[in-house]
């Protein structure tokens, strides 16, 4: 399972597996889910299928890593799905219609993510808009711009970039690689860098952070800009998988991303959250969807089952935590 490579980086000082479990209740839920699905479906526990799950988790996970930054500061970013779509459309458009070389297009596309994030942050930090409203506005604006630029039609991705959706060698899907890299980056930023630590302080008590000399507004700019870049990367990975940038791509993914972060143990009131938790949260969602497909659960019942399992997964965590207290 790909997850085994990340934890070491993320938990830092604490040593063994027991510590993760104690801190990451979601992991317990994931394990239960995996065991249950292995018993229910003989197709589940194959290497190909698990890699599929990884690929299918990738976009949500990358979006969710970005959302983790924002949620740790006590904010929320509803615009990640739209920004992902806009970035991908911009990439495809600059590389095809505008005829720029693809590396330039990639840079422009990432810049679009940054700009969207900065606009969010400016509205929040200087305009004092609630993050919900600022990013809801951006959700509409970015999606609208994606439609305007693409005139509502998908644009083919440049071939060079589309390889991001391929598989390295026989097995290793690049989206999984990208997800792992972004996860490690998120973990390092959160745990080790000044902006990361400032995010926790701001989310824990903004006033105390400010009185301790943290430039809260500037840190918010960094936070939302990071979320924007992560969204752009997610958008590029998504479009590469489809070999085409779709103006309607990733619609509604913001809820999935936020759910992954919260399932992973973060609190929407801020100050809490870890990259590893988010990763596990995204895997839970992907495993769940994959499992329901493998088990041929009827489409109408799927939503019910997903709802129930999400609730149960987090319930496992909170009850376990209550047990130790």
């Amino acid at each position, binding site marked *: 399972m790909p997850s085994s490579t990340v934890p070491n980086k993320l938990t830092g000082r604490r040593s063994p597996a027991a510590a993760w479990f104690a801190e990451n209740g979601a992991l317990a839920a994931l394990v239960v889910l995996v065991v249950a699905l292995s018993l229910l479906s003989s197709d589940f526990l194959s290497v190909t299928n698990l890699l599929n799950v990884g690929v299918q988790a990738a976009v949500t996970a990358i979006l969710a890593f970005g959302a983790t930054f924002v949620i740790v500061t006590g904010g929320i970013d509803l615009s990640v799905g739209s920004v992902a779509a806009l970035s991908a459309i911009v990439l495809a458009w600059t590389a095809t219609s505008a005829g720029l070389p693809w590396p330039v297009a990639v840079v422009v596309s990432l810049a679009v993510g940054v700009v969207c994030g900065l606009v969010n942050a400016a509205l929040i930090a200087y305009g004092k808009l609630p993050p919900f409203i600022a990013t809801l506005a951006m959700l509409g604006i970015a999606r609208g711009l994606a439609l305007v630029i693409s005139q509502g039609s998908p644009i083919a991705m440049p071939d060079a970039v589309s390889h991001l959706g391929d598989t390295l060698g026989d097995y290793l899907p690049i989206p999984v690689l990208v997800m792992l890299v972004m996860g490690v980056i998120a973990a390092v930023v959160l745990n080790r860098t000044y902006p990361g630590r400032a995010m926790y302080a701001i989310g*824990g*008590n903004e006033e*105390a952070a400010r*009185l301790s*000399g*943290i430039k809260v507004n500037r840190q918010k700019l960094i936070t939302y800009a990071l979320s924007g870049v992560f969204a752009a990367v997610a958008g590029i990975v998504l479009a590469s998988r489809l070999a085409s940038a779709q103006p309607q791509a990733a619609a509604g993914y913001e809820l999935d991303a936020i759910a992954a972060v919260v399932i992973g143990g973060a609190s929407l009131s801020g*100050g809490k959250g870890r990259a590893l938790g988010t990763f596990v949260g995204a895997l839970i969602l992907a495993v769940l969807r994959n499992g329901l497909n493998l088990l041929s659960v009827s489409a109408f019942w799927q939503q019910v089952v997903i709802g129930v399992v999400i609730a149960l997964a987090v319930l496992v965590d909170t009850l376990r935590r209550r047990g130790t207290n």
Partner: protein
Amino acid sequence: MRAERDHGVSAEILKAEGLRKVFPGVVALDGVDLSLRPGEVHVLLGENGAGKSTLIKILSGAYRPDGGRVSVDGQPVDIRAAGDAQRLGIATIYQEFNLVPQLTVAENLALGRPPRRFGLVDKKRMERQAKALLDRVGVDVDPATPVSRLGIARMQMVEIAKALALDARVLIMDEPTAVLTTGEVAKLFTIVRQLRDEGVSIVFITHHLEEIAEIGDRVTVLRDGRSVTEVPADTPQDELVRLMVGRPIDQQFPRQTTERGEALLKVSGLGRRGVFDDVTFEVRAGEVVGVAGLVGAGRTEVARAVFGADRYDAGEVVVRGNRLAPGDVHAAMEAGLGLVPEDRKGQGLVLGADVAENLGLVTMRAATRAGFVDRAGQRRAAAKVAEQLGIRMTGLDQEVRTLSGGNQQKVVIGKWLVADAGVLILDEPTRGIDVGAKVEIYQLINALTASGHAVLMISSDLPEVLGMSDRILVMARGRLVGELPAAGTTQDDVMALAVTDVEGPRAK
């Protein structure tokens, strides 16, 4: 006295025996007994983290004990929730405020039991009742003000009024005087005596030893989660200290004056409409300047404005010759200012983060190389300060939320000690800190000034201001009304100035 206690349960309104409470990693209470008679003021004394607040939280239904018994009127009781305590006639003023900031004073006073008419909340009656209660505690606040607009001291008075509203038989007060000035304390004591005479039993927690003889009848001393003894309230202070800390403390205010150097902080003509006006003073290297005044005199506001936490309309702040940009905390810090705010929960601490994290907050920027924070180094520095201040904790990983009040305060001070600020502004620095630790902090202040730093100390604890300052500034109604040398000044001198009837920006 002891004999008296033995003859019969009926004499005791409330009795706790062998209470135990365990938190992950800490035994907060390890066999605590407490007996409370009708019409007595029973003082709980103990160092920070001794378990006082935990004990009263069990009595008020906020925590369930892991062992032991509580009985009321000789009947064993099981207090599961705040409502149960209320029904038993137990009212509690908690150490940390339990007010809803967004709601008005009147709503907070009626929280959980608003007066109703035809099933609907009767706001008129609620405000009338609130007015009456506020008058009773002698605080002049409009019942329609949101609590978030009140300063700490007024919040405390509202808390007191809220507890009085319950007409309880047992009133528990966890450090109610920590944030009050002499005037309010006097008012509070009048109320307490009156209640006691009406037969109400009062449990009173304080770290101000002089208050014990003044108001108390008996004292139960807690040490490390155990009740070690029960003594009459007129026991000499030295003896109380010995019982509590386990060793005597020679000198309560060990101020060692140092030679004054250049003026590090110059404030001139500082003003904000309706809050303070024309505030001018300076603080020199090696100096401790005390700021005294009544509650609402505007000391906190001036301190915050100087530090850049709030804006001001007029005047300027100069640190080491550099004029500071108004409203810029970061610039103030760069210039070498530090502020220990009075509201530790709201402004001082990230409650959900651990001790190490909080202690490192101010120095995080300095500990950053190429964007990466040297967390190991931060931790080492934190460990040192925690050791120096004697912070009682399970480890640097303990969440600050779960520290005792006094230990939380030590963390707030500690983070600025790590930062080594040139001019440290302390707003009620020893609020809720036990006598032993206070001396430690005073010694730190001495060490700071000895090494050429300067301290501006706002305190409502007059003995502290007198004992630890070199000069004392007195504020009233948003103005500086006078300056006194510490030597030879008495509490009465300060109070006389503090109540001067100046024309100030503030109403009353």
